């Protein structure tokens, strides 16, 4: 992800604002044509400010969701009931850190640093997926998150692999590839519970009861109330509408729930022969808006922990920066020109 390249381009643009303005119309036409032709937009290409802002907002929210999403699952790492499950869960939570990292990198290609984005997360100016404001109360919740939450996320994310912005699309390809095990492990976990003792079965059903509706909310408000959807579709940041993806998810889940031997908590759920889809009940959008506003069961807790991790890590990050500063002979990032004259053989460029 050519962040550096982007930074250079920005500097140049700032050097000659007049030129930029004069070229804007031509650029815009080129941009529209590229998007229409399904070409990818790359970091140093000209792009409308609103396109850039939309991407930063969406990628940042996605990245924040990955790292906040570590918390509800990490909650069970120390209590995982078998060593096999413990290893799987650790690897999964680790992947989420990695995915957060890929996504912050993608956002950085748009000229916004990770620090800036984290600061916005910590101060509540940027959001993360509301689903992570729900608590993981039992071990079965780990399974429900894998099956339903990751399932919904994958339904959302697969089309993003074709998103018009290159770095985001590439990050999503990597993420989707790695995430394929996340949903499966959740399903397998629930299956073991559902076919286990009556207590385990009940635990699984209870988790599905609590996670089903919030999972449906993950697709966002209904199409007629979604403020960003239309523009994002034109820009090919988004490829399908919220309701379309939600329906796809419901259709996938119903037979999967049957195979699990668990029921989905919706009395209105039934096959509609005419539509060729499952009909489902009304989503409680009041709850959705309230959780979004900060009134979910865990909003406060999640942000507090995130901030604490960041603040308690400050002295560590500073120590490493100070060490790098002291040992500049090995470091070509700080002041390259000086280093090159001072130390022709830069051992910073290492091949493993």
């Amino acid at each position, binding site marked *: 992800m050519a962040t550096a390249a982007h930074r*250079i381009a920005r500097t140049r643009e700032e050097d000659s604002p007049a030129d930029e303005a004069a070229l804007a119309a031509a650029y815009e036409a080129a941009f529209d044509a590229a998007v229409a032709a399904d070409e990818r937009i790359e970091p140093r290409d000209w792009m409308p400010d609103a396109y850039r802002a939309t991407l930063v907002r969406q990628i940042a929210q996605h990245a924040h969701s990955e790292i906040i999403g570590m918390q509800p699952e990490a909650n069970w790492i120390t209590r995982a009931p078998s060593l096999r499950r413990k290893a799987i869960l650790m690897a999964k939570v680790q992947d989420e850190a990695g995915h957060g990292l890929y996504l912050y990198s993608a956002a950085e290609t748009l000229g916004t640093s990770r*620090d800036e984005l984290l600061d916005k997360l910590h101060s509540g100016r940027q959001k993360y997926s509301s689903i992570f404001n729900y608590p993981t109360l039992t071990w079965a919740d780990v399974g429900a998150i894998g099956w339903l939450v990751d399932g919904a996320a994958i339904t959302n994310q697969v089309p993003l692999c074709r998103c018009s912005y290159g770095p985001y699309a590439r990050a999503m390809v990597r993420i989707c590839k790695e995430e394929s095990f996340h949903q499966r492990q959740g399903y397998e976990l629930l299956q073991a519970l559902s076919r286990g003792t009556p207590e385990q079965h009940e635990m699984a059903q209870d988790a599905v009861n609590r996670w089903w509706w919030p999972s449906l909310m993950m697709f966002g408000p209904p199409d007629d109330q979604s403020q960003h959807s239309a523009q994002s579709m034109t820009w090919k940041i988004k490829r399908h509408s919220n309701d379309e993806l939600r329906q796809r998810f419901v259709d996938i889940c119903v037979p999967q729930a049957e195979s699990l031997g668990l029921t989905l908590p919706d009395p209105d759920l039934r096959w509609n022969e005419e539509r060729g889809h499952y009909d489902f009940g009304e989503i409680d959008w009041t709850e959705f808006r309230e959780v979004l506003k900060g009134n979910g069961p865990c909003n406060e807790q999640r942000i507090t922990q995130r901030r604490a991790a960041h603040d308690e890590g400050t002295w560590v990050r500073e120590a490493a920066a100070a060490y790098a500063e002291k040992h500049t002979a*090995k470091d070509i*990032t700080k002041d*390259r020109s000086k280093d090159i004259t001072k130390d022709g053989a830069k051992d910073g460029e*290492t091949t493993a």
Partner: protein
Amino acid sequence: MTTSEWPLWEVFVRSRRGLSHTHAGSLHAPDAELALRNARDLYTRRGEGVSIWVVPSAAITASSPDEKDPFFEPAADKPYRHPTFYEIPEGVKHL
């Protein structure tokens, strides 16, 4: 003491011997040694690589999209550089 962010590094991974290093992504690290280790942990944890390069993002000089035409268009009208430009009589082999 500075609280500024660790610099950004670009990571290139050789997925197996015989192939060249390809760009895998980027990450933050305070220095080259940790950049290399972070890259190992992040970009090869599923056995994706046998060798890693890390390069400070600031050290990359890139061509500009503004210069796209003068840079790349002149190469587009020289079809005689490509083997398909030439007509070879049917039946002639090993050419």
